[in-house]
């Protein structure tokens, strides 16, 4: 790979938000203290920017009130304080009525790093996916975060998008950057094994594919930025050609991408074996992004190692 560009998903989200705010006067932002997540929007549209204080449940309630009054509210918070602290407000106020509320959880996966398990968001998709009606998006990089932010405002209904921190992350070296909710994208063709990833794991999966190439393993890599609704068409086109499929996510293997793919494969009766990579039966812990990815075997080399081992395992059919 040539020189890689980098950018933070949080910055990209804020930039897109300002753009959306300029073309749609119904968009309002509601913060629970940390308004900086809304970037320039707050300075450009102070009259449409609100802060309820450190009160995430109230933030969701207020957003619901705005939505019921014809506005399109955007709320942000550290993902755990949104997806867990305010889950009942999300369930009763937002999800039941499919209100047009855009919920953006920040600092997800390992990106809150040293802040420890209270902040590491590794079960947020599980909480949200237990509730009907909410679209779930985990963008791969800053460009996708930007495009996805614009796309969710063209969609009428509740969305949960998980982004990461201020840290600059690699931008994927791919050309076509059109984002459509519910559309998977094949980033690298391959025939030996299928790797389906979301969020920052997409980049690491591409790295893994490079490593595997040197071992004569030809891995296909798919970016599944939308976890719900899952791209059933892509899955039924792709999965049957593989005997081994891997999902990779910076999230618990329950309730996120891995679970969704497991359900799809078993319900369709597709004859393939699945390995779900992610965090298993434990909470997060303090560490740098790199340390944590390595510890959970979710960095490029870790994914490649697991893929190779998985390929060599006999399938228990």
């Amino acid at each position: 790979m040539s020189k890689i560009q980098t950018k933070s998903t949080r910055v990209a989200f804020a930039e897109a938000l300002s753009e959306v705010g300029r073309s749609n006067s119904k968009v309002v932002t509601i913060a629970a203290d940390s308004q900086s997540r809304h970037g320039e929007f707050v300075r450009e549209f102070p009259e449409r920017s609100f802060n309820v204080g450190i009160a995430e449940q109230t933030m969701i309630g207020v957003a619901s009130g705005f939505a019921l009054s014809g506005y399109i509210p955007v709320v942000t918070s550290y993902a755990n304080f949104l997806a867990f602290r305010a889950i009942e407000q999300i369930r009763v106020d937002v999800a039941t009525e499919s209100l047009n509320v855009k919920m953006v959880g920040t600092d997800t996966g390992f990106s809150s790093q040293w802040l420890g398990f209270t902040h590491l968001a590794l079960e947020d998709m599980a909480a949200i996916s237990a509730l009907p009606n909410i679209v779930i998006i985990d963008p791969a990089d800053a460009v996708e975060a930007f495009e996805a932010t614009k796309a969710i405002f063209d969609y009428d209904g509740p969305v949960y998008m998980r982004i990461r921190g201020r840290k600059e992350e690699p931008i994927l070296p791919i050309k076509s950057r059109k984002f459509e909710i519910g559309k998977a994208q094949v980033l690298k063709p391959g025939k030996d094994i299928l790797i389906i990833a979301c969020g920052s794991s997409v980049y690491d999966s591409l790295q893994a594919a490079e490593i595997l190439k040197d071992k004569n393993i030809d891995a296909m890599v798919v970016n599944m930025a939308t976890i719900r609704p899952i791209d059933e068409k892509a899955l039924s086109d792709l999965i049957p050609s593989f005997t081994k499929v891997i999902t990779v996510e910076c999230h618990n293997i329950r309730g996120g991408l891995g679970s969704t793919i497991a359900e799809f494969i078993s319900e369709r009766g597709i004859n393939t074996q699945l390995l779900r990579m992610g965090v298993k039966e434990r909470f997060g812990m303090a560490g740098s992004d790199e340390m944590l990815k390595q510890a959970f075997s979710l960095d490029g080399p870790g994914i490649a190692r697991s893929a190779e081992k998985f390929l060599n395992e006999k399938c228990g059919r």
Partner: protein
Amino acid sequence: MNIDSVKLKSLEKLAEQIRKDSIWMSTRAGTGHLGPALSISDIIAVLYGEIMKYNPKNPSWPDRDRFILSKGHGCLALYSALAQCGYFDRALLKEFCNRLDTMLPGHPERKLPGVEANTGSLGHGIAIGMGMAMAGKLANKDYRVFVITGDGELQEGSNWEAAMAAAHHKLDNLVVIVDRNKLQLGDFTENISQLEPLAKKWDSFGWAVKVIDGHNIKEITDVLSSIPLTRGKPSAIIASTIKSKGLKFAENKVEWHYKVLTEQQYKEIKDELSLEELAYE
């Protein structure tokens, strides 16, 4: 109570060391909530140096007073106090945000001796403390429970649910100390969601209230020595503080919520504040 000047000196020293350690740990780690730790250093020093009964060799001693740092992001100060009081070796302070799965992460966890509750998600501490206070009464124990909350933190509704119920249950063994530094993450509290009149709020919830200078060791000691302020009522102490207290250029500045010194800045103030060598290994 009148504390003698020797005791006063030793508490001031304890507080000063908490500040030095907080600055040292966070600079070494390159991360941490420094301002929030510096604003509670004096209160923590008085609690651990004078007020609370505990046994560092037996952190789960049933009769110990309990301390909960509900504003868990202020943990630098707690870590230093626990080390100074003998809960663990000072060498462990090097681990602050410096090792995978460290005992000293960016928010306190119970795996570290002396930490009573996992905090970091704001608005949990008062209710947990209330449960401990109720358990104490149930078991006929006379321990007290001290909870430090942020002032911005009080915007979380859960605090007020617990406040109402704790007064109802007449928990005069429960003490909440509000770190009233007037700043939260993004701005001054009164610019985001007004807290004042804060003392009146606690009073109207049925608590005995006292407003003090949270950097005056003698005043803190005096008020914490007269708990419960009123029999049959939980006590709320609103401590006026300055965020980043002791770091002149950072005092009362919002950006020092989650910010640490550069090595260069550390070197510049090292002699003035008689700080330790950073000593990376």
